[in-house]
């Protein structure tokens, strides 16, 4: 059996986790991760990494729930092991608070996280502007530790990691048999996908080690996420904004909104501004495509477009991407007169 040569484009959480899944689940492959950016310079490094999933309008709820559950289960196993600190995965409890009672009081992911329940009246007293809330325990998965941990696993399965900027997927032909496209916003160019656009997020990473709980306003605009060695304060959702430079006025405004929810943050020190561009799309693009140019053929599995739900959904979608890769591998290995794709 010939080794199937697989190129994974992109080294954010999607590229690396898909590479690991493929090496775990698809026998007889060689994997090369190719990217121009690696941790700590990817979008995944800016993300707080809270496992609180968004809702993708174009995706059936059951599927989203499965993605989230697969990711949660995968990270839960890590957090309960001695590797948790290496992998940058922690457990954190807290509250999601609402200024008005939501139509859907119990979200689809309520039984995936731990101990989900509605906030009591006494708990809500802490947030006088809010009338309703969820209390639960979830996970936080931090890019700057998790991505290196994944990279170690890729290398451990004899995968290669290459620094290179790909301008066109055909550059990978004929060196590779299958391409897995995890290039996030890069797919605008690489896949000619006009549906993907940035949603700019600015955050502050601060020192406030006394903050032990997450607090998230249901709008998703204001949040406080305590992590291993800093607290992420956010944020913004600026559609179509490609600017990667932090804006000082926005930082002031984020700090002010967060201090309104957690006054002790006025004592936060060592504030660092970060910007990430969420690779947003009405739905995650998770599908095969057979690129054709003359007589050349290049099977591609697209795996991108997770918007604000990258970390929250990554393992579930990586598993699905791996199944699609496996299908491509089967086709390549089947001596069929006609292509099955």
């Amino acid at each position, binding site marked *: 059996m010939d080794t199937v040569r697989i190129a994974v484009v992109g080294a954010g959480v999607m590229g690396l986790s898909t590479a690991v899944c493929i090496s775990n689940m698809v026998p007889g492959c060689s994997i090369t991760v190719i990217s121009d950016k690696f941790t700590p310079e990817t979008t995944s490094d800016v993300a707080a990494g809270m496992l609180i999933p968004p809702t993708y309008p174009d995706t059936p709820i059951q599927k989203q729930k499965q993605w989230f559950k697969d990711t949660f289960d995968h990270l839960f196993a890590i957090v309960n092991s*001695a590797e*948790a*600190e290496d992998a940058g995965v922690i*457990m954190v*409890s807290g509250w999601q608070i609402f200024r008005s009672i939501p139509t859907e009081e119990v979200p689809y992911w309520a039984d995936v996280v731990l101990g989900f329940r509605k906030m009591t009246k006494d708990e809500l007293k802490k947030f006088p502007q809010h009338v309703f809330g969820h209390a639960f325990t979830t996970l936080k998965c931090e890019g700057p530790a998790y991505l290196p941990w994944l990279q170690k696993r890729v290398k451990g399965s004899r995968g290669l990691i290459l620094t290179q900027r790909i301008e066109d997927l055909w550059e990978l032909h004929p060196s590779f048999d299958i391409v897995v496209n995890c290039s996030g916003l890069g797919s605008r160019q690489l896949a000619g996908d006009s549906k993907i656009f940035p949603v700019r997020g600015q955050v502050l990473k601060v020192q406030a*080690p*006394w903050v*032990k*709980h997450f607090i998230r306003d249901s709008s998703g605009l204001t949040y406080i996420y305590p992590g291993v060695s800093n607290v992420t304060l956010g944020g913004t959702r600026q559609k179509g904004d490609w600017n990667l430079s932090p804006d000082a006025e926005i930082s002031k405004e984020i700090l002010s909104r967060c201090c309104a929810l957690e*006054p002790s943050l006025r004592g936060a020190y060592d504030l660092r501004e970060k910007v990430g561009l969420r690779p947003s799309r009405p739905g995650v693009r998770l599908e095969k495509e057979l690129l054709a140019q003359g007589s050349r053929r290049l099977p591609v599995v697209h795996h991108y477009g997770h918007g604000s739900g990258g970390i929250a959904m990554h393992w579930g979608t990586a598993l699905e991407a791996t199944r699609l890769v496996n299908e491509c591998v089967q086709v390549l290995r089947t001596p069929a007169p006609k292509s099955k794709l």
Partner: protein
Amino acid sequence: MMRVVVIGAGVIGLSTALCIHERYRSVLQSLEVMVYADRFTPLTTTDVAAGLWQPYLSEPSNPQEANWNQQTFNYLLSLIGSPNAANMGLALVSGYNLFREAVPDPYWKDIVLGFRKLTVRELDMFPDYSYGWFNTSLILEGRKYLQWLTERLTERGVKFFLRKVESFQEVAREGADVIINCTGVWAGALQPDPLLQPGRGQIIKVDAPWLKHFIITHDPERGIYKSPYIIPGLQATTLGGIFQLGNWSETNNIPDHNTIWEGCCRLEPTLKDAKIIGEWSGFRPVRPQVRLEREQLCFGSSNTEVIHNYGHGGFGLTIHWGCAQEAAKLFGKILEERNLLRIPPSHL
């Protein structure tokens, strides 16, 4: 001139001094409060405590103690929203109480926030335990709180003196009208108290910032604090699980270190990566009930009032404010009896 001497500068001494000064300074012609202690922060018993607000599981023999616990929690909770909370050593913290079998809910379940039983998936995280609770409580870190109390008292002109008091008489002879006895586990040196015993504890402080929850295990056969516990503080995390009644050894010992380390690593395997910051021993001032009462002592021709406030076991921080307020009330009675009040005190 009302001269008050507080003996003891742990959480009980300093909070009682503050409570009395806050309530009565404005209603007295003149009030002088002094704190005498042979140990100040960071060398007090309070400094060794992890600082988690949590009473013992069983109801106290003196029901007032339950009220004092509740008053303390409510008082601290009201300060949580202030920008100064972290400076006081105060923060909200959630976590787990773990048991090997089902137990009744504690009497304080409605005092803490969001009390509930653990779900099956949560219990799966702790293979040695089969039952438990989750709730949100408070951390009040001893060292930071004592520093904060010291600042507040200093602002008010309260003076501190490093001295070892040998007797109530010596303090009375110097002119003290009221003595507040907050000497903790060493109260027996001033007045024998066979009910008071040291409950020696040893703790390891580590740097484990990824831990955001407290985990307290219980072994009813062994008794309180004899089972591993992990309590994250504002910066460092406290590991413990030692309670030795009658042991006056203030030095750390290796068998206890191993008991704590092995027990806690078993509970939380990631601790293997935690850097050890230090190790400390302290004596919980154990008593069947808190001694919070007045006593009149006769030295020669004058009567000196003593207010005893000691014997808070392993729940000093948990109960301190309720006791301070009660001590202040007793002080107020003394003032009334001596016709010293200019105007009636505010009923806080």
